[in-house]
C-alpha cells in the first residue's frame, strides 16, 4: 500500500536530485534550467499529495500557478542565455567566472 510518506519521500528525492543536478553538471547551462524545472516539479508533487490527502483544492491551484511561473522563468532564463551566447559564443558554465572574489 502506498502511503503519503512514500510520495513525500519521492518528492524529497526528486528535490535532492534536482539540486545535485545543479552543481554536479559543469558543462551546459540548459541542464541547469532542466534541474530547476525538476525542483519545481518536486514541489508540485508535494502540493498535490497534500491537497489530495487533505481533500483541499487550493494546493492544486497553487500547482497551476507554479507551473505558469516556471514557464515564465525558463523563458527568461533562455533569454539570458541567449544574450550570454551572443557575447561569448558558448554556454559552458565553467567559462562564466569573470565576476569573482
Amino acid at each position, binding site marked *: 500500500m502506498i502511503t503519503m510518506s512514500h510520495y513525500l519521500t519521492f518528492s524529497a528525492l526528486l528535490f535532492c536530485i534536482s*539540486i545535485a543536478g545543479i552543481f554536479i553538471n559543469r558543462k551546459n*547551462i540548459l541542464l541547469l534550467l532542466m534541474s530547476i524545472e525538476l525542483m519545481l516539479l518536486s*514541489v508540485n508533487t508535494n502540493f498535490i499529495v497534500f491537497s489530495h490527502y*487533505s481533500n483541499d483544492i*487550493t494546493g492544486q491551484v497553487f500547482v497551476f500557478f507554479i507551473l505558469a511561473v516556471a514557464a515564465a522563468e525558463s523563458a527568461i532564463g533562455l*533569454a539570458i542565455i541567449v544574450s*550570454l551566447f551572443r557575447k561569448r559564443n558558448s554556454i559552458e558554465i565553467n567559462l562564466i567566472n569573470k565576476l569573482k572574489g
Partner: protein
Amino acid sequence: MIIENTITSLLNFIPEIILFIMSMVILLAGLFKFSSKYVFHLAVLSVIVAFIVSLQNQTITSSLLFNNSIIKTNVTDFFKHICYFIFLVQILISRNYLKDKKIITGEFYSLLIFALLGCFIIISSNNLIVLFLGIELSSLSLYSLIALNRSSILSSEAAIKYFVLSTIASGIILFGFSYLYGITGTLSISDISKYLISYDESNLYLFSYVLIFIGVAFKFAVAPFHMWLPDVYEGSPLPITNFIASIPKIAFFVLTYRFLEDNPIINNDNFSKLLLLLGIFSILVGNLFALAQKKIMRMLAYSGVANAGFIFLGIFSAINNNFSIAAFYVISYAVTIVSAISIVTFISSKKFDLIYINDFKGFSSRSGYVSILLMITLLSTAGIPLTIGFYAKYLVLDALVDRGLILAAVVVVLMTVIGLYYYLRVIWFMFFESGSNSLINVRGNFSLFILSLIPASIILVFLFPDSIFKYVFEILT
C-alpha cells in the same frame, strides 16, 4: 457581498493598480519614437501619483482584502512609503547614468516598476500563492533588468548567476511552503502563524520554517547564501544594484515579520539559534571579505552581507513580537546604502565608470560637498555616532546584551571595528590622498539636492530620533 468586498479591496489597492497600469503605459510609450523621450517623466510622475494616493488612503486599522489574500495595515503602509521614497530617489538620480549608458528606455522603467510592484505584493500578501507570485514578479523583472545592459558581458553573467541561484532559493522556499500547507492545510499566512497557538509544534513545521528562512536568508544575502550579491552588485547597472540593495530587503523583512508575528516558533531554541548563528557568521564573513575588496561595489556588497547579519540578529532578538529593532535596522540600512550607491551613480559619468576604490583618491579636492555627503553615509554604515547607523547597531547590541549574549555582542563589535577600517579607507582616499580624477562628474544641482536629502536626514534623525523610535516601536510591537 463579494462584490462590495472586491470593490473596497480595489479601492484600497489603487496605488498598486496605478503602478501596474502606468508600467504598461510606459512600456508602450517606449516603443514609439515621439513618446520615448518622456518615459522618464512618466515613470516619475506615476510613482509620485501612486505615492500621493497611498499617502491619502493609509489606515490605522488593519484590513484584509481580496478575501484574505492581501493584508493592509499601518505597517505595510509605512514600509511602502519608505519604498516609494527610496525608489523616487533612485530613479531621479539614475537618469543621467542611464542616458550615458543608453538604457533609458520604456522597458527599463516598466520592468523597474514591476519589480517595485512585486515587492509591494510581497509586503502586503497574506496568502502563500500571492506571496509566491510577488516574489517571482520582482525576481523575474530583476533578472531581465540585470541583463538589460546588453553591451556588457558582466551584466549577463550576473544575470545568469542571480537567476539560477534565486530560483534555487524560490524552490527551497516553495518546498517549505508545501510542507506548511501539508501541516496546516491552509495557505493563508496569518492562519499558518496562528497554527501553533492551537496545536503543538511538530518537527515538520520547524523544518518548513527553517527552509523558508533559508530562502529568506538567501534573499537578504546572509552568509553562507550570499555569493550572488557581490557579483550582482558588480555586474548589474548601478540603478538596478541600487534597487536590489534596498527595496527587496525591506519587502522580505515584512515577509519575515508576517511569518513570525504572534508565532511561538521564534522562541523555539533551534530556530532562534539558527537565526543567531547565521547572523554572526554573516557578520564575520561579510566584514572579512569586504576588507580585501578593491572595487567599491563589491565592498559595499560585502558590507551589505555583514549588515544582513545584523538584520538577522535583530530578527533573532524579536522575542514577544518586538520587531522594531530589526525594522529600524532595515530602514536605516536601506536608506544609507541607497544614499551611498546613489552617490556612486551620480559621480560616474559617460566618460568614466567609477569602479575601484582608488578612484576616490583626492575626491574631496574635486568636490568637497559630495565627499562630505559620502563620508556621512559611510560613517552611518559603520555605525559611528552622529549618524542613524549608530542607533541601528546600538539597538541590536542592546538586544543581545539584554538576552545575556555578551560574548556574541563582543564578537559583533570587534567585527564592526574591522568594518570601520574599510569604510575609513574610502574616507581617507577622498580626504587625505591627492590626485583627483577630473573625469568624475560632480555637476547637476537638482541631483545634488536629492543626494543631500538622505545624509541630511541621517544627521537629523540622529539628533532628534525619538519621534521615529516612538512610531516604529508603536507599530511593530
